[in-house]
């Protein structure tokens, strides 16, 4: 187990380094002179030079990369050109909206999808199964931001059950904050839950054909018991893969959904960054998103080992 975790940790570190190199290359190398790019065509040479100094763009590439990466390790993401405040401050504030939103949606999607998938597998070929398969088929096809718009019109404007948008901040208390995040989370969770339920169903049905289920039946377990005691844990292996992948979709999806609900999250920050050509902000937020995806991949790898003893024993 230690060996397995150690290898995954090394691969986590390597992925982070590789990802940071890619981002650095795209943002700071390809445009040529980021300072000139940020200020646009009409900037005076003096202003460009000043910004270059401000951004620490004076050294060679290697030096610049090391100081950027080293700064991030210390929690220093540089200073936003438009906001004139440390990017770290901005990001932490916005992360307080986006991360809870993605996790809320992930929790919703998992809690809804797994039981539904199991139910469909247990009742495969019957009306319940066809019903679930039909609804999830539709759920996958619905764009989450469109579903969000429908939710707003129905639940926020017509019936006024939930706020239509905006975020009161966590200072206003957990209740109102969660209320503000509920519609966005539901909108995000619907397509993901549909996918996950289908994966759960087919993974369970796959395990039903396995020899160990037959062994369990020969022991005297009913079909339901065999599924619960032996099928589910084996089916979790492919399901975990999808949950891990979904987190990155949820984070990306959260950025889009924030626009529907005017939530002050990373999405709003990054789109402002793009329009204002604030490369420091864009670079930092992208790195943060990629960091989150890579860490979740690492956690999923650890979860595999918890489920599958074959990995724990380093095979």
């Amino acid at each position, binding site marked *: 187990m230690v*060996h397995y975790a*150690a*290898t995954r940790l*090394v691969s986590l570190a390597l992925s982070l380094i590789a990802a940071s190199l890619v981002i650095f290359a795209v943002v700071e190398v390809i445009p040529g002179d980021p300072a000139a790019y940020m200020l646009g065509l009409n900037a005076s040479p003096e202003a460009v030079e000043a910004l270059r100094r401000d951004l620490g763009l004076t050294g060679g590439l290697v030096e610049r990369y090391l100081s950027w990466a080293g700064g991030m390790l210390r929690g220093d993401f540089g200073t936003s050109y438009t906001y004139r405040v440390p990017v770290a401050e901005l990001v932490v504030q916005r992360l307080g909206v986006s991360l809870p939103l993605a996790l809320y949606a992930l929790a919703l999607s998992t809690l809804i999808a797994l039981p539904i998938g199991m139910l469909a597998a247990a009742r495969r070929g019957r009306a319940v199964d066809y019903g679930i398969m039909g609804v999830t088929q539709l759920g996958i096809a619905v764009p989450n931001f469109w579903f969000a718009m429908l939710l707003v019109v129905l639940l926020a404007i017509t019936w006024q059950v939930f706020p239509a948008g905006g975020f009161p901040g966590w200072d206003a208390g957990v209740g109102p904050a969660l209320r503000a995040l509920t519609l966005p989370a539901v909108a995000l969770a619907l397509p993901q839950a549909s996918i996950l339920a289908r994966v759960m169903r087919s993974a369970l049905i796959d395990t039903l054909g*396995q*020899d*160990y289920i*037959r*062994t*369990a*039946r*020969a*022991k*005297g*377990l*009913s079909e339901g*018991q065999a599924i619960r*005691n*032996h099928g589910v*844990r*084996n089916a979790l292996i492919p399901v975990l893969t999808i949950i891990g992948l979904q987190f990155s979709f949820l984070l990306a999806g959260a950025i889009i959904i924030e626009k529907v609900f005017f939530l002050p999250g990373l999405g709003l920050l990054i789109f402002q960054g793009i329009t204002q050509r604030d490369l420091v902000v864009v670079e930092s937020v992208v790195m943060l998103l990629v960091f989150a995806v890579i860490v979740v991949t690492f956690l999923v790898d650890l979860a595999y080992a918890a*489920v*599958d*003893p*074959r990995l724990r*024993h*380093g*095979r």
Partner: protein
Amino acid sequence: MIALEGVSVGIGGAPILRDVSLALEAGRILGLVGESGSGKSMTALSVIRLLPQGAALGGRVLLEGRELTALSERQMCAVRGAEVGMIFQEPMTALNPVQCIGDQVAETLLVHGAAGRSEAASIARERLGRVGLSPDRFPLGRYPHELSGGQRQRVCIALAVALRPKLLIADEPTTALDVTTQAQILSLIRELVREEGMACLFITHDLAVVAEMADEVAVMKAGEVVEHGATAGLLREMRHPYTRALFEASRHRPERAVRETGTPLLEVREAVRDYPLRRSRLFGPRPSFRAVDGVSLTLARGESLGLVGESGCGKSTLTRAILGLEALQGGEIRLDGAEVAPGMPAELRRRMQVVFQDPYGSFNPRHRVGRILSEPFHLTGRPEDAEARIAEVLRDVGLRAEDAEKFPHEFSGGQRQRIAIARALITRPELIVLDEAVSALDVSIRAQILDLLADLQARFGLSYLFISHDLTVVRAITDRVLVMRAGKIVEAGPTEAVFSAPEHAYTRELLAAAPVLPAA
């Protein structure tokens, strides 16, 4: 105490079992023998009522007078595992890979409410000890992947007999195991049946296993029991012609004209093949596994050389090296004096072809037979008379020239193995490597293929390297034999001499473990 009365099974209107009647007694083993598709497994599944969906069961199964066929599914669950236990053919996949063995054995007790959690664990420990997995070497927390095939089959037996059922059904329990492991599992089942007074329905395709195991034998063919009686008497008299045919085929030895020339064709000298393993520590050195460890052998022109050994002994690795598919780390392989290696010239490859075990996996399912047979022309360039050559080899192996237009799935297993042989013949090779080439076939088909191989050898002066785990087959078709163990050749000599007077302890162990048919 257990009786099947006129049991029939149909799937979608097609009869699978017809009027099967059998009786089993406590402490005795009934051997159910037949070729694939004879319905022997279906008979077992109809006793335990785990038939595939859509199967219609008729007739009666009585367990101590209780009619199992009349029970509801819920009542049947209470019978399975408690009164009737079952073990299956594939021990490698029969256990849940993510649950430890102790829990899997204890589950039998828990699901029937026979014991509390801690008591179930201690009974599981005792039952695992009884099947030869002592708790000090095999603690309950072990997972299936940490055990060998034989050990896993012991776990399966432990969980099947955990509640001391009245009937144990064993469906080909040793078919996937090596011969020495098979002998151990067979004797374990025999002991358990005697000691615990269970009745046992033992299903196998192997007449020799039945002859050693069973008190009574029932022979099945096409869903029907054709002959039934006490083992010794049945094998002595063999009233039904099918029983006799099965018996003859099992011990069939093709007529072979020995035409050895003595000039060496294939020479292997001190061959060594290492496989790199995974690092055990993150930055540690990469360990390796020596699969073939200094093997030397010589195959003379026109000779049939056997290579026997159990799984993992290195014979497959050696085969791939001999075929020039993988490089050696030491030693050399020469075919008629020229060096065999992955980069060897096509002309050299042409002279050596191969037939594999699996008649289903040997062909690209999307290619027609004609295209499959012309694949080796890659070595020679497609000759102008390619069509004629394809027709010719098809006739040589007993098929028709028109079969070139068909797809592999349109043929039976035996016919496919003929196609595989035809593919090996088409480049007119001198040496054919037969890698378990008859191991997956039913005995009657196996006998035909052995005859074909002997016939082709005589006609074309072929040399065979015959690789198999099956001692009977090797004895039937080879002139000389090599016994391989843990990467080394431990014994070599003329086949009859090695089989009648083995010198190495391992060879003796192998021969002792192999079940034999009594002389007719």
